[in-house]
């Protein structure tokens, strides 16, 4: 994990000469898995696209590991007293990769026109926005209809990427030919994409921050087999394994190699939380006592230590501990099979079989489902594992055809952005796997979620979310399993790879290689 024997001497020698000075130049090879379907971040927002396109496109703001906003394309910003007006002052002299100037008009086009049409997650936040205007080339003003507490958190590159107006205005976005050669303002430019092999990005020589980026080029390498990806890192083919690109048992092995470092940082903004949707509509899972019994029956620490090789944290409820407004003042569900059995007896569980739908994302998730089945059968619950592929999983969950289904979701820094969408009744919509799939209905809490979203005072919001968390944890609408940690594995001579709470997805403009 740390600098080990073999490299200690070399590194010490290097430090003696350079004393931590960042070195420009070099090439970095990073695994991307699976191959992204496209790189136009305004149209495609899946994980691999964000990883690569985060170097090409940029947002107005970036966020520290403590989720504090910091300058991106916007140099500074002000929020009015009433929380209704957000004014951004843009960086001067920013150019698109094709040489055109980046102006406030591009921001208005991106947020108000392009992304409103294409970006489902941002659209939910834009519902609070009344107008977006550009009083001059370097100033943008967002005026809200009503206050929206988490609004300052929606300016990250994956949520609100800046799209070039001169290329997309008036065109059919999805079939625009420029989608194949994306144009952004970011530290790296798109150079080539050999489908099935690699995506090649090169340094943006005209980047608006002097001296950045340090790297000359970045190759995102497509290696479809998990075992092969681990081998590719071992043989030095690739330098960086982003979180989740190798199986967990390989993580332990690879991080013990000489000259290999790892970090769990860079996921604070996303705070991926894993849980099982429990179908609240029918079957045994519609009984709150059954759902509580599941929480007591599961040995979540065992899964964390064995299936996840010690990575991750046991959650206390719907809000991950890295997310703003987290509270642990809630009922704790420790591993207690006897309590689970008592609850099952009290409800008169008749042994009806429940189907568990694992997440088809590889071995780890399959093993996790098996561990849960084992735990549940120990307290007398009959479980049947219902395996399928990714498309089948999407179909079953979005059509509510399951009893218990594994999933994990990002929280985007704020409960009103990434948490409430899974628990309020207005988000019970068939056809999407990312809303209130479990069918939990609690009108009293719905009102509290809504009220908390429009508060502007942080202390007030904290109090509101404390109350919500306390109440919802007793209802167990879903079975919270683990705050996932996806360590990024890299060679120790690569520095400043992860510098924000958005991690590798934020563009690696600060990364440099010690020669």
């Amino acid at each position: 994990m740390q600098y080990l024997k073999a490299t200690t001497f070399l590194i010490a020698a290097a430090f003696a000469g350079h004393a931590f000075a960042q070195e420009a130049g070099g090439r970095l090879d990073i695994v991307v898995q699976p191959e992204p379907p496209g790189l136009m971040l305004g149209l495609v927002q899946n994980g691999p696209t964000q990883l690569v396109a985060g170097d090409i496109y940029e947002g107005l703001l970036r966020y520290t590991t403590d989720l504090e906003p910091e300058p991106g394309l916007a140099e500074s910003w002000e929020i009015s007293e009433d929380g209704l007006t957000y004014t951004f002052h843009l960086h001067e002299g920013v150019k698109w990769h094709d040489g055109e100037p980046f102006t406030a008009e591009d921001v208005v086009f991106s947020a108000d026109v392009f992304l409103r049409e294409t970006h489902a997650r941002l659209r939910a936040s834009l519902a609070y926005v009344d107008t977006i205007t550009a009083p001059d080339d370097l100033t943008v003003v967002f005026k809200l209809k009503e206050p929206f507490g988490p609004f300052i958190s929606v300016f990250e590159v994956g949520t609100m990427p800046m799209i070039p107006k001169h290329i997309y205005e008036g065109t059919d976005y999805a079939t625009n030919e420029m989608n194949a050669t994306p144009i952004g303002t970011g530290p790296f430019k798109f150079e080539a994409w050999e489908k099935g092999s690699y995506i090649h990005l090169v340094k943006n020589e005209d980047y608006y921050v002097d001296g950045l980026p340090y790297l000359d080029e970045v190759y995102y390498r497509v290696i479809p087999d998990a075992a092969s990806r681990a081998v590719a890192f071992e043989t030095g083919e690739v330098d960086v394994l982003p979180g989740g690109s190798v199986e967990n048992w390989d993580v332990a092995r690879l991080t013990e190699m000489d000259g290999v470092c790892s970090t769990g940082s860079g996921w604070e903004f996303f705070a991926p939380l894993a849980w099982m949707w429990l179908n609240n509509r029918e079957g045994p899972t519609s009984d709150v006592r059954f759902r509580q019994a599941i929480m007591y029956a599961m040995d979540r620490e065992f899964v964390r230590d064995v299936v996840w090789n010690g990575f991750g944290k046991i959650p206390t409820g719907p809000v991950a501990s890295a997310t703003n407004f987290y509270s642990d003042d809630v009922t704790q569900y420790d591993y207690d099979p006897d309590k689970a059995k008592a609850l099952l007896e009290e409800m008169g569980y008749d042994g009806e079989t429940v189907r568990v739908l694992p997440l088809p994302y590889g071995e780890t998730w399959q093993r996790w489902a098996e561990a849960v089945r084992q735990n549940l059968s120990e307290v007398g619950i009959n479980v049947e594992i219902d395996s399928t592929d990714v498309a089948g999983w999407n179909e079953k969950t979005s059509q509510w055809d399951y009893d218990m289904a594994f999933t994990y979701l990002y929280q985007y820094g704020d409960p009103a952005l990434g948490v409430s969408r899974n628990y309020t009744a207005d988000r019970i919509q068939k056809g999407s796997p990312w809303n209130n799939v479990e069918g939990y209905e609690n009108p009293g809490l719905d009102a509290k979620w809504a009220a908390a979203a429009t508060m502007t005072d942080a202390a007030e919001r904290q109090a509101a979310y404390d109350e919500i968390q306390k109440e919802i944890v007793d209802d167990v609408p879903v079975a919270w399993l683990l705050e996932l940690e996806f360590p990024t594995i890299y060679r120790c001579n690569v520095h400043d790879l992860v510098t924000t709470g958005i991690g590798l997805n934020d563009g690696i403009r600060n990364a440099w290689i010690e020669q």
Partner: protein
Amino acid sequence: MAVLAPILGRLVKALITLLAIAVLNFFLIHAAPGDPAVVLAGEAGAADEQMIAQLRERFGLDQPFHVQLGSYVWNIVRLDFGYSFRQGAPVLDLILERLPATLILTLTAFVISLTLGIALGVAASARVGKASDSVLTTLALLFYATPLYWAALMAVLVFSVELGWLPGFGYETVGAGYSGLARIWDVIKHLILPASTLGLFFMAVYMRMTRASMLEVAQMDFVKTARAKGLSGPVIRRRHILRNAILPVVTLAGLQAGQLVGGAVLTETVFAWPGIGRLMFESLAARDYNTILGVFLVSAAMVIVFNILTDLVYRLVDPRIGARA
């Protein structure tokens, strides 16, 4: 004309078969749970009704099933493979992009397995019952029984990780900027491991089949006659036995040749070889209907073409076949 008439008949039948396959594929792929819109929405990590509806409309999935089927068949008839909405490119381009890498891999494996398989089979049959025959047949059995996935990973571990002799991934050194001979040499180095792994299985099959067939034909009367004429052993083996023993091998080679364009999913996956097999597999997982159907159709067409070619080769090897038809 005598040769062409039956071929023309076969071609007409082939076209009808192809159309039937296309329709069947269409039904099969739509029978799988989920559709491209659901997968894309799922990957985005957020979705609302507007997004799903937009996607379905764009993909033509909002049309009734028979309309979708009708327009698909009509496009096929006009040789239009459609557009991959997921990858934002025409399906034909996607397939052609992967074709060179696929053909290099599968053709090399084909040639290696066929030549080595026949040569070793002939050698083994000439030494039947001796130690060298036992060694060869045991090896063939081993190669035949080894799962491809395991053999591939082991090959990487031994020759790439431990010994460092050969590159384990991709089809060329990424970003090395080689050209001319240096590039060809680079591709060959990358080709050795995947092509030999892929070729091993078929080599074993050809070898076993050649050996068995050679031994069988060797018992026949005309071989005795040839021997009685005083011909030497090698001449008998080459001109009399092999020529008659090769037919079943040709049949099998025809089958393997039919799969050349379909690629080799496992080998391509382990060696990160950018071939058509992976394109198909990934499109299947993403329910990228047009792309899967395109790959299926091209593969089916290839199987049919090679079946016809195999028949022609039969006639060359054994003129009696042509005379009978």
